[in-house]
């Protein structure tokens, strides 16, 4: 008996490195763990970047072709055929600015929303911080965005040389903030959707559709000034609106920009991230039982 007590005390005093239990702190993102997995995140980025364009002829050139084609199509259909207004900006630059910045948000959201389903096999066999996957997606897309952004700047230069009058201004300095906002929104919404898709696969199809729909509710194609008054509240409620508008104003000098609107986007992002974290932590613990 005496010995038993001793070993019990000793046992309790042990320092355990890992305690696997049923409940976790739902608001804890375990960022320390994520930081220690930074090598893994970078390798995921590398994998996604390298693997996507293996066995393609044009390779990474696709990063330039995609926004270029979209812009050309938009310019043709919405600009030349439908003759939609563009706040007096060159149509090509107007659509390209919208496309480039929208693509970052849209691909962050759609790719993140697939996290659990497309990695089910991997997640089912080995543990690593699950957030490593969505975070690596944000970084992969950031690289693509950087390339496309530089491409956009090149076209800006071309248009200026050919006599267009653009007004790039000090709001450009906010670009990193815009990127952070989009990354946060994309990540937050993405992990909410991806957590819910472990239960309801239907959502996967809704996401594709929803993102396209959301694009039309964002001034990517139609400037705010031309939106019908009845629908204006939708545009204003959309947290992506201030981001696209600010970006366009900063580099092309047309549109609106307002700090309260950006603050609204920021608040929206925080709420989405909090909800996302809670749902993610709940699902992460047991999703293998449902997938």
């Amino acid at each position: 008996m005496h010995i038993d007590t001793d070993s019990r005390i000793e046992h309790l005093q042990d320092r355990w490195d890992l305690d696997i239990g049923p409940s976790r702190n739902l608001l804890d993102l375990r960022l320390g763990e994520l930081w220690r997995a930074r090598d893994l995140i970078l390798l995921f980025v590398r994998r996604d970047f390298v693997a996507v364009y293996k066995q393609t002829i044009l390779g990474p050139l696709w990063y330039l072709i995609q926004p270029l084609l979209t812009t050309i199509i938009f310019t043709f259909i919405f600009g030349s055929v439908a003759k939609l207004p563009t706040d007096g900006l060159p149509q090509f630059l107007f659509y390209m600015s919208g496309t480039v910045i929208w693509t970052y948000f849209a691909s962050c959201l759609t790719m993140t929303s697939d996290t659990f389903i497309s990695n089910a096999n991997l997640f089912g066999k080995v543990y690593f911080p699950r957030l490593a996957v969505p975070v690596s997606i944000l970084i992969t897309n950031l690289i693509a965005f950087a390339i496309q952004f530089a491409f956009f700047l090149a076209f800006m230069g071309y248009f200026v040389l050919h006599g267009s009058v653009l007004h790039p201004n000090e709001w450009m300095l906010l670009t990193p903030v815009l990127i952070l906002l989009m990354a946060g929104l994309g990540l937050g919404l993405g992990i909410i959707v991806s957590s819910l898709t472990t239960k309801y696969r239907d959502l996967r199809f809704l996401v594709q559709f929803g993102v396209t729909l959301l694009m039309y509710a964002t001034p990517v194609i139609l400037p705010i000034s031309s939106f019908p008054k009845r629908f204006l509240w939708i545009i204003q409620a959309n947290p992506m609106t201030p981001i696209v508008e600010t970006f366009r104003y900063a580099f092309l000098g047309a549109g609106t920009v307002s700090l309260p609107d950006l603050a609204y986007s920021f608040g929206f992002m925080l709420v989405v991230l909090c909800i996302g974290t809670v749902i993610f932590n709940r699902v992460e613990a047991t999703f293998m039982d449902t997938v």
Partner: protein
Amino acid sequence: MSNTVISIENLSKAYRLGQIGTGTLSRDINVWWAKARGKPNPMLKIGEKEHGNRDGETIWALKDVNFTVERGKALGIIGRNGAGKSTLLKILSRVTAPTSGHARVKGRIASLLEVGTGFHPDLTGRENIYLNGAILGMTKQEVRRKLDEIVAFAEIAQFLDTPVKRYSSGMYVRLAFAVAAHLDPEILVVDEVLAVGDAGFQKKCLGKMGDVTKEGRTVLFVSHNMGAIQNLCSRVLLFDRGELALTGETRNVVDHYLKTSYQDQTIDLNNCRRSGSGDLHVTSFHLESLDGQKQMSAVSGEPVIFVIGYENYSKTLRKVSVGFSIHTSNEVSLSIYYSHYSNFYFDDLSPHGEFRCMIPEFPFSPGNYLVGFRVIANGIELDWPKAFIPLTVVMEDFYGVGNFNNFVVNSGQILLKGIWNSSK
């Protein structure tokens, strides 16, 4: 600080049927609607009712499991399919969370629930080593330090910069295991990894795991291969329907497990496809010791009696020869032996009885085997049941040197024993 590196306390895991969701909203509504009308859940698979430790709508994959593991020990985990072994490993690997209870662990834990997890076919061998290493928890520096060792172990040096989709399946598995084997965790959790690859590769894996425990690390090993369990583990946990049924020394627990699982096996011979004239049927099979005691496993190098039960439906059978074959668990034939090889025939058979064959020194190494039967008379097939009966072989002091599980890893399928000397 005590020597305990894993402590499992009241660990339970429940799977809730019908509340988990079925994958689509419409089906969930379907289930909910059936429940509301008092009908059974339409999404339950037939036969699931009998499965596991069930409690209303809940299946307890693990129920109140308690045990501890000491540093440097290899612990075996056995049990039938669905006994909760894999669930335990999944909880320890943090793939899924327990419903209640705690598992506490000291040091880094690495789990090998599958080799090659996270390999990307388009990336080269080198890129995959880094990626797979990182997924398993290694830093870039650690992988870089071990790269040469890993490549040498996997024997793929000349293909290091080829995409792994061009690899043969053997190279793929070797590379995957090599990465995992060089993880150097304090605790290694292994689940049936040995089920893949050829015999040589399996032995290599076993050897590597043996080395790991010798270096003072702890291994948790789940397997259906009793021979491998015997080689590697000093202590074994037996799970049955989510509960810890027995824990103790390897030999005792393995014996107990075989005894309980043997009860179902006579059924196979009576309800299987068979060919032959049907004048006689092989109906049962078991092992006996020399003093007539029923035995659950054969012991390498020791005498054992094969007892083959039969039903005889004919009065005229003469010159009957009884044969049995022994196969690996992959059904590769290792040995065929008919009584007429030894010029022995059975005549004047009673309506039912047993054929007996005493093998003075059973020559197979520890492991799981399969036994098949065929009975002929005058070149005519009387009965050939198309079913294999599992046969487990365990090891005692085969070489008579008082030390019985150090050699088996490198011993091959059949054990030899001879008298050595040298001459000038």
